[in-house]
């Protein structure tokens, strides 16, 4: 491990341009992490009591939206967009809550596995419809937003159901140190287990390939349709995880989709993923979600109207994207 690190350092030191290139490639994400660090320091300054419990609360409240942002990222990288993320979350959340109510803890394991498989199926339906009908992604997933939300209402008409204790315990509290909330660990483990292997595989490469240039990808032998369906399946899987995290954190299932779809699109864009496809990763959107959520917390600490937090989120979204496209315009000009 340590030798690998030193090796890497040497490589970077040897090629002076290497570090610069790495920074430039991940500049956006690094900038986000910097902003997050500043924001944490600022939070600590205005609220000296902000400590482990604050971080835990932040992690729990961030988890569903962070997973939704990861879900959206998968679709956007493959030059798609999935407006049904929020509805899929609602559907998987109510199904899990309904099945787990008054059942044994062991049965809940089966429920979780089943719901994750369901997420894959929902995503596959979305992807297959996009591929077969050749209708723009945004229209198909807009329609599926209604369909999945309707299904969620069929499963549970009003908020209800229950959650297994171990699932609830998975996101609450901390592990190892009180500064490490379990919800954050869950998020990192989920991303590490699902996203990173895919990102490094051939499939991940084709995901980015069809996103940046479908025609070129097709000519180099990538099955564009199959990869697109796969991208939507990933979106469905992460949406199911987000739905499960909703059930876990609230203890019930709510059939009405929250504001997750549009916020996930916002987080994806803030996280440096190009809506034109083929660029970005899941780390940036997750950091963006944390920043947006921490900003809301800070506003309550400052005794500001929380509605101003919504205004601030909108202004940040618009402002950051404007700056981003300005940089791109500048770069293109010379």
């Amino acid at each position: 491990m340590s030798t690998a690190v030193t090796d890497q350092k040497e490589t970077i030191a040897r090629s002076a341009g290497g570090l610069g290139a790495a920074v430039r490639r991940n500049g956006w994400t690094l900038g986000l992490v910097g902003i997050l660090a500043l924001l944490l320091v600022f939070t600590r300054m205005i609220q000296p009591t902000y400590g482990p419990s604050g971080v835990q609360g932040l992690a729990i409240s961030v988890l569903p939206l962070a997973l939704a942002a990861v879900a959206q990222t998968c679709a956007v990288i493959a030059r798609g967009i999935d407006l049904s993320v929020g509805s899929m979350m609602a559907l998987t959340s109510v199904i899990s809550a309904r099945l787990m109510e008054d059942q044994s803890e062991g049965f809940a394991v089966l429920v979780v596995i089943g719901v994750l498989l369901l997420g894959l199926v929902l995503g596959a339906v979305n992807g297959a419809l996009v591929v077969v009908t050749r209708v723009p992604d945004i229209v198909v997933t807009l329609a599926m937003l209604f369909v999945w939300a309707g299904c969620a209402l069929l499963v549970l008409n009003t908020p209800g159901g229950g959650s297994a204790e171990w699932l609830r315990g998975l996101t609450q509290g901390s592990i190892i140190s009180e500064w490490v909330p379990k919800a954050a660990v869950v998020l990192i483990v989920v991303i590490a287990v699902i996203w990173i292997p895919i990102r490094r595989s051939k499939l991940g490469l084709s995901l980015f390939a069809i996103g940046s240039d479908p025609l070129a990808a097709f000519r180099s032998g990538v099955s564009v349709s199959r990869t697109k369906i796969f991208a939507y399946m990933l979106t469905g899987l992460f949406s199911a995880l987000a739905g499960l995290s909703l059930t876990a954190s609230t203890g019930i299932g709510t059939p009405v989709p929250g504001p997750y779809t549009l916020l996930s699109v916002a987080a994806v864009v803030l996280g440096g993923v190009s809506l034109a496809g083929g660029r970005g990763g899941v780390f940036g959107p997750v950091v963006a979600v944390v920043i947006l959520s921490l900003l809301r917390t800070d506003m309550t600490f400052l005794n500001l109207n929380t509605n101003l937090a919504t205004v601030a989120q909108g202004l940040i979204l618009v402002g950051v994207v404007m700056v981003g496209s300005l940089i791109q315009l500048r770069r293109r000009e010379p």
Partner: protein
Amino acid sequence: MSEVATSTRSRPRLLTAGGWRSLIRERPIVPLLGLLALLVVLSELIRPGIVSPNWAGVMVRAAIPLAILAGCQTITMLTAGIDLSVGAVASMSGFVVATLVGGPGLGVGIAVAFGVAAIVGFVTGIGVGIFRVHPLIMTLGMSLVVLGLANVWQIEMVQTGAGVPDAFRQLGAGMFFGVVPRSLLVFVPLAILIILVLNRTGFGRLLYAIGDNPVASRLSGVRSWQVLIVLYVISAVLAGVAGFLYSGLTNVASVTLADSALLPSVAAAVIGGTSILGGRGGFGGTIVGALILAVISSILSSLGYPEAVRQILYGAIIVFVAAAYTRITSEA
């Protein structure tokens, strides 16, 4: 301009199978009207005697505000854009008037609502036109800003209370002779204006041109940023009008009143044959699309189906109609 060229080409084939296809391609409103008629017949079959002049009036009344919001989507989609801020802007307009009518009066309220809407549209237009921000993101961000500010305004106004002005209730919900909705007084001139602007003016042509081929339109000297700013201001003001009618129709003043109409407005435009990729479509089809959605809602609620089934069928119909369009138009 392309319309003229293609219609002369397709004239001789009108009676063949390919002719039907080109008819649907050039005049999507014809099969849409067929679908609408089919749905009306279906309503009558399901509930004999339900179809009456009064029923038609109620359908039209329900479709009008949706059609105006869908008009915002139509004109922005022609330039390959979309306006997700219409829900927030419409709710804000209705709410602002309802809070101001008691104090400064109706005229001031309407002026303030239109002013705010125009500013929102102007900022959106600057973002989309000058900074080249994706319209989806720009309008999404603006809708968050509008919603937040409307909430702040709501808290400020909580003492004075809010009431939907009588004039809006008359206009939004009233019917002449119990048959003809009064909102047609607003809608008919508006619809004629939109259709004329799209089909007969340079501005309308520029919208189609920018959506059809942005590079070609730039090379032929179109200052697209100016067009886009004007476009988004128009869209926001239209959303304001729809907000007045919504608050009158439902007699509710709330900062989230029209939010639920946002996605149906996109759906109505898509069903009406406007391409989300830009350059193709028109407001006529959108009006029929909004009517179709209103009739479908009515059929499903008269069948006693729960909201859930309504939503599922809604989604299925959008996919089906959009797929049918794509199939037909892509074979050109």
